[in-house]
């Protein structure tokens, strides 16, 4: 449409002829309209976000009821404790008496490998306790929950840190 609409085809007085009605060209210049259309198109395309936020569902244990039966005892050999320390470090150990802590990271070769190994070793009775310290961040918590879903860990819980765990982290200067 890059043409200027010239004022119509048939105008003008012919000598001695009839006065014809001026015929307007049916073509109009659409360029400005197209400009606007594409401007709007670009704007809306850039402003639209197609990926909606995703969520992970977290189920915390309900408040304990005094009338509830005592929870079943678990063999401490089947319990893995994961401490979330500062600077995105993870400390883990098995059992609770005389823990042998190991420092690792949130990478695929770090804590994920450990969880997968241990869960293969221990099997169905495997229980993971996640203890985020006060110096860890929300990102760490989300990361470790993500690892739980990646490794298909069945039973895990977020629990508060015990003073012994804090001492343990302090000994590694990670608190």
């Amino acid at each position, binding site marked *: *449409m*890059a*043409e200027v609409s010239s004022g119509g085809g048939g105008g003008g007085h012919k000598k001695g002829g009839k006065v014809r009605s001026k015929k307007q060209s049916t073509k109009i210049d*659409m360029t400005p*309209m*197209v400009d606007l*259309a*594409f401007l*709007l*198109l670009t704007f*809306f*395309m850039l*402003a*639209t*976000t197609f*990926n*909606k*936020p*995703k*969520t*992970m*569902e*977290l*189920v*915390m*244990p*309900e*408040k304990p009821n005094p009338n509830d039966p005592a929870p079943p005892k678990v063999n401490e050999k089947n319990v893995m404790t994961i401490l*979330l320390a500062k600077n995105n470090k993870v400390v883990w150990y098995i059992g609770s008496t005389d823990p042998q802590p190991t420092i690792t990271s949130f990478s*695929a070769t770090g804590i994920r490998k450990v969880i997968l190994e241990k869960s293969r070793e221990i099997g169905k009775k495997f229980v993971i306790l996640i203890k*985020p*310290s*006060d*110096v*860890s*961040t*929300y*990102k*760490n*918590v*989300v*990361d470790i*929950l*993500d690892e739980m*879903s*990646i490794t298909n860990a069945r039973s895990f819980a*977020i629990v*508060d840190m015990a003073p012994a765990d804090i001492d343990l982290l302090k000994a590694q200067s990670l608190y």
Partner: protein
Amino acid sequence: MAKVKPHRTSPSLDMTPMVDLAFLLVTFFMLTTKFNPEEPVAVDMPKSTAEIRLPDTNILTILIAKDGKVFYNMDNKLKRAQLIREIGSRYSITFTPEQVERFSVLPSFGLPVANLPEYLDAEPEARKELPQPGIPVDSLNNQLKDWLVYSRMVNPGLRIAIKGDGAANYPVIKKIIGTLQDNNISRFNLITNLESAQ
């Protein structure tokens, strides 16, 4: 040998189909775009491989900023109007109909209830200048608990979503999760960005 004359075509071409398509797309994007509501703080959500989509309606969002400030948001205009009246009667503050109207379209906010009337009276542009100290979540003055209790009262089908900044410290999260648990909310959602599995 005769010269080959280049075939001259008219430089004007019919743009109508293209324009049709352009307008079709414009209409599509105009109708599908949902503008993100303006948040009082920028929240950099952590990434996860979770792929559950957040439902569109009946969502209560607890926003946690980097510095640990807590913000509150709930959808549904009608329910919000109801909520602010309930909160008003809880804290013996009477909100004018105009304030109720303004509250029902408010984006996330992080203010103690006592500061709400003043905040609502301010013009939307002036509100950005007002400081938002966050909703108190201390054990002595846990206003988030009241917001939760009354929100669930006006809308029992509410889902709770936590939208936290990755750099927020864990104690704040612990306090909020503790508040949720105290109110028998043991199932909630953590909003994250999508990360492709390594």
